[in-house]
Every structure is written in C-alpha cells, then in structure tokens.
C-alpha cells in the first residue's frame, strides 16, 4: 500500500479508473482534475475524513488496485454513526469564504450574459468590460491577492494543492484576456468560450477552496497565526478602502436586475 500512497493521483486513476469512482463516492473529486499531481496520501489526508471512513476508503482503493491480494477489511463499528463534518472557518478565512459569494453571483449570471450577447446585434462592449473589471479588480486583485500574498504564505507553497490554486489563478487570468480580446474585436464565440471557461474553472476552484483547501489551512494555523492573518487581511482591505467591495456589490446587484429583465 505504501507504494500507492506516494504515487501521483492522476497515474493511480489512469491505471485503475475504479479508484476515481471510489474517491467520488467520498466526495473527493480528483478524477476530473486537470493537474492530478497530488500524492494519494495527501489527497486522503487533506479531506480530513472520519477514521472509520478513511480506513474503509483505503481498503477499497487497495482492493481495487490489487484484487487478488489478501487484504483484511477494516473493523468498522456499525453503531458508531459518522456525522457529516460541519465546515467552520477562522475569522480571516471566513472573510475569504464570504467574498466567494459575490464572485459566485457573477458566475451564476454568465449564461444570461452570453444569451444577452448572442441576442444583441453587436457585442455590448461596456457590459463585457465591466464584468472583466469586476473579475480583475474584485475577484483577482481584492480577493486572490489576499490568498497569494497572505493566506498561502502560512502553508508550504510548494505543496501540490497550492500549486494547483496558483495554476487556476493563471488559467483564469488567461480566460479573461481572451474575453477582453473578444470584446475588443466583437467576437461573440470567443467571449462565449472563455467566459464559460472562466465560470467552469472558478466554480470548481471556489468549491475546492471552501470545502478542502481553507479547512486544511485552518487546521494548520495556531491561534497566534489566526490573529496575525486577521490583522494582515484587515490591513490589506483598509489599503483599498470600504468603497471597493461596496462598488462591486452594487455592480452585481445592477447586473442581476438588468439581466433578469432582459433575458427571460
């Protein structure tokens, strides 16, 4: 089993797709991951499963890879009910989770933005560039920079999970560049492809952060580090001022109102 634990999850799943299906059952979504370079032991560890669940999962994975091997199933106490773990966050991490809500509201509007764009005789350049401004200023500068400059510094930045987050940020920025190019040249297909690409990427990215990465980082932080990070995030927010988040919340509200009226 030791040899499997230290292998890249992508290679494990490629060699034995059943492992991907088993992980899915435990809500560990490695199968569709484009990178997949995390080690199996880290993948299991980061999800903080109940000990009974983890023992059963590891048994099933080993059995799937080595069906003929004589492996003893774990002793599971059926009277011990496994309660789903409630997600809780430290105050600075909770603030980052709350910022995701506004970003998710934009992501939810992407189909309506595309429908509106396709129905319009020509691309509403101002609408698309305003969405790009939200992404670049609120999602990227205001939110992602706090992750990159503060949060990720409290863990090993070379770890696969953090590298995947950085890669997602870069991929997202590349989608946005393509959206801008589409808006400048009036290329509706380009806007559609990359706005949907951004939506799909960020939807998965935020889910990974809210459910896996942030709780994993929180588990490693000392009380003193939580206090320090809270102060540093507050200082970062103060440096841009209260007006910035308020401005972008008002933008999303207005966009929702406009698109719900225009696209029915």
């Amino acid at each position: 089993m030791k040899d499997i634990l230290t292998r890249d999850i992508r290679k494990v799943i490629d060699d034995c797709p059943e492992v991907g299906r088993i992980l899915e059952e435990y809500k560990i979504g490695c199968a569709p991951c484009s990178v997949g370079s995390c080690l199996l032991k880290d993948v299991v560890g980061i999800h903080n499963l109940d000990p009974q669940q983890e023992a059963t999962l590891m048994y099933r994975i080993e059995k799937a890879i080595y069906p003929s091997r004589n492996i003893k199933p774990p002793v599971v106490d059926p009277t011990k009910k496994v309660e789903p773990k409630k997600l809780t966050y430290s105050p600075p991490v909770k603030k980052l989770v709350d910022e995701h809500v506004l970003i998710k509201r934009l992501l939810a509007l992407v189909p309506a933005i595309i429908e509106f764009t396709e129905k319009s005789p020509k691309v509403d350049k101002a609408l698309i560039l305003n969405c790009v401004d939200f992404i670049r200023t609120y999602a990227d500068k205001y939110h992602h920079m706090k992750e990159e400059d503060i949060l990720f510094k409290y863990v090993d930045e070379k770890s696969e999970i953090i590298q995947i987050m950085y890669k997602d940020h870069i991929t997202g920025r590349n989608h946005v560049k393509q959206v801008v190019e589409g808006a400048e040249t009036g290329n509706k297909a380009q806007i559609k492809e990359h706005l949907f690409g951004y939506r799909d990427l960020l939807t998965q990215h935020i889910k990974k952060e809210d459910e896996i990465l942030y709780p994993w980082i929180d588990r490693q932080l000392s009380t003193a580090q939580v206090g320090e990070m809270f102060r540093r995030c507050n200082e970062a927010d103060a440096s841009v001022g209260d007006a910035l988040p308020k401005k972008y919340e008002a933008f999303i509200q207005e966009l929702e109102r406009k698109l719900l009226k225009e696209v029915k």
Partner: protein
Amino acid sequence: MSGCPGSKTIDFSANANQEGSETGKRPSQLRQWPIQFHLVSPQAPYFQGRDILLAADCTAFALGDFHKDYLKGKSLAIACPKLDSDQDVYIEKIKSLIDDAKINTLSVMIMQVPCCFGLAQIAKEGAEKASRKIPVKQIVVGLEGNILSEEWI
C-alpha cells in the same frame, strides 16, 4: 438529581487517570502574575499585542494538559462568571485589552455547565464594545477534562 448543574455533586474518580503518560516533569507555562481578572491591568506589559487566554477558574483543574496545550504562548486572566462580583468591570477590561493593549486574539475557555457560558457572553460584549476587531475563540471543557468544542465565535 435536580438543581444547578454548576454545583451538582458528581463523582467520576473511577475514571481518573485512565490513560496518558506521566513520565517527566511538566514545566509551568505561566509567564506572569497576577492572573485573577480583577487584579490584572490591561496596561500590563505581558498583555501588549499578545494572545490572551481568559479561563474560567475551574478549567485549569479539569483539563489535564491545560498548561501544555492551551496556556503555552499566551497571557492569562482567570474569572468565575458564577461567583465573581462587579462583572461589568470585566467587560470594560476586555474592551481595553482589545483597544489599548491591542491584543492579537482572545480565547475564552469555559466549563460545560450553563453558568460558565456567562464568561463567553462577557467576552462577546467586551469585544463588541471595542473599536478594534480581533478573532475570539470559545473552548468548552467537559467535566471530566475533555474538550467538547473549540470554535471561533
């Protein structure tokens, strides 16, 4: 048995010292004096910019690894929300610790008995009155010295 759970008689001596290592000496992690909340001053140097543990009196006796796991690296104040008088002073002291001593975090450790939650309420009120905002954590200790919950509030 009825009556106040905070003063109800329970004997769990049969469960005492069931597990754990007792080898080696455990040094005290206390780095200050005084510690009683009425006696400490928010201006004391050992509070400035520090992580503070506000512990209900009984917690240190209930929790076997109080020093190693919770007091280490923190400055301390102790209080009893059931028996102490003039508890409005405590609210003002928490406000002053946050605003004047600019403490980094406040961890409030209480026992599971209902009256002890009054100390968490005092901490909340003090934090709400303060103009600075800091993370506040609540740790609830069971009567037999187990940690029942530990969460940011």
